[in-house]
C-alpha cells in the first residue's frame, strides 16, 4: 500500500497543489506586490514603494480596529473554548438525549455569518429598545457584546464537537485507574482529561483565534462598524479603506493593511500553536 502511494503521489498531490497555487499562492504574491503600488485595478498598477505601509502604520482607524479586534479575539476565544469544553464534558457523560443536544448545539454553525448578523441585529435591537438603551449602531460597547454573543452562539457547537471527539478518545482505563486510586472529579478533570485533550485544545484555540481576527461578515451585518467606525474590526477596516473612498491611492493603502493583517494573524496563531502544542501529552 505504502509503495503504491509512493509511486502514485502525483495523483494525490498535483490537483490540490495546482488549486492551492492558483487559489492561494499566486493571489498572495500578487497581493504582496500590489501593496507597494498605487492602483485602481490589478492590471494598471504603478509601483510606489513603501508609501502605502507608511500610511497604514500611521492610520489611527487601523490601530483602533486592531485593538478592538484583539480584545474581541481574547474574550471570544476564552468564552467559546471554556463553554464548549464544559458542554462537551456534560454531553460525554451518559445523559439521556445527548445526541439530540449535540445536534442542537451544532446547528447554529450551519447558518451563514451575514444572515446570523442580521437576525441577531434585529433580536438585540429589540431587547435594547425595550430596555430603552441605545441600539447596537449607537454604542460600541453594546456592539462588542453583541458580536461576542453572536460568535459564541455560532461557534460553541463546532468546538464542542471537537472536544467531544477528544474526550472520547481518552482510554477508559485511565479514568478507571484514577478512580480506583481515589482521585476526585476535579483531579480527574485537571490531571487526566485536560492533558489528554490538549490536541483538541490546540485545534480549537487556533480556530477561534483566527476566526476572531478574520471576522468580517458578522461584523458587517451586525454593526457595520457603527458608530463612526468604533466597532469596526480589522477585516472591515480594510474593506472600507478599499471601497468607500474615491481615488486610486486607497486601494494601495487597503492592500498594505491587508498584508500587515495577514502577517499579524500568522504570527499570533503560530505563537499560540507553539504554546499549546508544547503541552500536549503522548497517550
Amino acid at each position, binding site marked *: 500500500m505504502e509503495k503504491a502511494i509512493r509511486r502514485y503521489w502525483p495523483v494525490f498531490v498535483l490537483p490540490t497543489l495546482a488549486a492551492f497555487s492558483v487559489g492561494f499562492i499566486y493571489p498572495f504574491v500578487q497581493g504582496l506586490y500590489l501593496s507597494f503600488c498605487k492602483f485602481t485595478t490589478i492590471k494598471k498598477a504603478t509601483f510606489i514603494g513603501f508609501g502605502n505601509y507608511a500610511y497604514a502604520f500611521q492610520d489611527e482607524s487601523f490601530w483602533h480596529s486592531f485593538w478592538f479586534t484583539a480584545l474581541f479575539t481574547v474574550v471570544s476565544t476564552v468564552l467559546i473554548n471554556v463553554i464548549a469544553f464544559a458542554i462537551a464534558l456534560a454531553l460525554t457523560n451518559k445523559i439521556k438525549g445527548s445526541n439530540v443536544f449535540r445536534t442542537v448545539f451544532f446547528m447554529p454553525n450551519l447558518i451563514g455569518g451575514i444572515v446570523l448578523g442580521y437576525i441577531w*441585529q434585529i433580536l438585540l435591537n429589540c431587547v435594547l429598545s425595550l430596555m430603552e438603551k441605545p441600539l447596537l449602531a*449607537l454604542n460600541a460597547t453594546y456592539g462588542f457584546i453583541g458580536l461576542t454573543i453572536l460568535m459564541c452562539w455560532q461557534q460553541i457547537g463546532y468546538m464542542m464537537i471537537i472536544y467531544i471527539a477528544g474526550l472520547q478518545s481518552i482510554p477508559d482505563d485511565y479514568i478507571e485507574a484514577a478512580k480506583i486510586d481515589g482521585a476526585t472529579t476535579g483531579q480527574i478533570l485537571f490531571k487526566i482529561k485536560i492533558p489528554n485533550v490538549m490536541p483538541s485544545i490546540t485545534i480549537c484555540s487556533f480556530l477561534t483565534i483566527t476566526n476572531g481576527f478574520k471576522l468580517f461578515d458578522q461584523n458587517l451585518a451586525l454593526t457595520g462598524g457603527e458608530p463612526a467606525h468604533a466597532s469596526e474590526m480589522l477585516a472591515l477596516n480594510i474593506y472600507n479603506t478599499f471601497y468607500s473612498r474615491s481615488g486610486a491611492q486607497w486601494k494601495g493603502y487597503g492592500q498594505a493593511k491587508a498584508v500587515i493583517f495577514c502577517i499579524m494573524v500568522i504570527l499570533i496563531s503560530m505563537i499560540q500553536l507553539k504554546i499549546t502544542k508544547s503541552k500536549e501529552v503522548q497517550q
Partner: protein
Amino acid sequence: MKRKNVLALGLIAMMTAATFAGCGSSASGDSATGDSASTDGASGKVYYLNFKPEADEAWQEIAKQYTEETGVPVTVITAASGTYEETLSSEIVKDEAPTLFQVNGPVGLANWKDYCYDLKGSSLYNELTSDSFALYDGDAVAGIAYVIESYGIITNTKLLEEAGYTIDDIQGFDDLKKVAEDITARSSELGFSAFTSAGMDGSSDWRFKTHLANLPIYFEYQEKGIDSTDAIEGTYLDNYKQIWDLYINNATCKPADLAGKTGDDAENEFAERKAVFYQNGSWEYANLTGKGMTDDELAMIPIYVGAGDEKNQGLCTGTENFWCVNSEASDEDIQATIDFLTWMVTSDAGTKMLAEQIGVIPFKNAADTTNLFVLNDRAYTEAGKTPVSWNFTTMPSEEWKNGVGSALTAYAAGTGSWDDVVSAFVDGWATEYAAAN
C-alpha cells in the same frame, strides 16, 4: 507497468480539469449570448455590467430581443445591490471584461476615468437632448447620463385629506411643519403618523446622508454660484437640522429606534397607510403601486427646508447614473456597444423599456413615461418652478457620507449632538476632499 503510468497520468489530467471546471463560468447570470459568427456577419459583442438590480429582468429581455434582431451577442450581468464597485473592480480586469459599465458622477469617475472611452461625436452622444447630460473628463465625454430621476416627499393625498389638508396647503417649510405637527398631535385619533420612519440602517440611510444632505449643499452652491467645492461652509446646516428634526419627531417610531429601521420598513409603513409623508424618489413608483397604492392617492412634493425661494422650488431632479464604454475593449466591441446603446435610445422597443423600467431618459427619441412622480416633476417645471439640482455627486467620498450618517443617527438617538453633525459635514468634507485629490 506502462499501462499503469498512462492510467495515472489520465487520472491526474482528469482531476486537474475537475479542479478548474468551476472557474470558467464565473461570469454567470442569465445572458443572451449567441454565436456572433453564425448570424449575418455581425462582429463584436456587448457585455453590460448593470447597476440597477430592479431592472435586471428588463435588461435581460431587451438584450435577447436585440440579439435576435441583429445577431450581436449581448450579455447583461447585474451586480448585487450595493456591491457595484467591488464587482466592477474584479470584472474589468478579466479577459472578457464589461464593454459597458457605469459610474456615478464626477467622484465615481475619478476611479474609472482610465477605462472610459471618449464618446464625443458618437451616435449615442448625438442623441442626447443636451450637453449637460454628458459627463466630462477634461474635453473628453467619459459618460452619458441615461436616466433623469426626481426625489422629494412622496405624499399620501388621501390621508392628508383625512387630516384636513391638501397638497396645495404645503407651499414651504413652515406649512409642512404646521401640517406635520398637527398630524402628530392628533395621530392617535387619526390612526396614522406624519412621516414614515427615517431609517438609518444601511438600506435606508442614503435617503438622508446623501439625498437630504443635497439640499444644504445645493443652496450653498446656489448662493456662491459654484458647482463643486473643496471645502463646504455649511451655511444652510440649520435648515438641514430643521427638516431632520421634523422627520424624526413626527414619525411612526421613536427617534432612538431609527438606527435599526430599514428601507423596507419605511416603504411598508407608507404602503400600509401608516404615514402621510415618505421621502424617496421616482424609482419608488413601481414598488408602491406594486404594493397596491393607486395614482389617485399619490403625489410627490418638494423637500422644503426653509431656504431659498420656496414658492418656486421644484423637486430634486438630476442624475448620477452614467454609461461608460470600456476603452480597453476591442474596437469591434466598442462599436458594438455604442451601436447597442444607440439602438436602446432610438428604437421603439429600447426607449419603451427604458422609459418604463428606468425612468425619463434624456434622448431625442425617448418614449413617454407613465411614472406619476416623473409627471409630477414635469408639472412643477411647466408651472415655472426650478428643480433642485443633484449636487451629491460632488460629495467627496462614501466615507464622508458615512460620517454624516453616523452623526445624524447619533443625534436622533440623543447619544450625539448636532455639533457632531456639523463637524462631520464641514470638517469631514475638507478632510475627505484633501484625501481624494
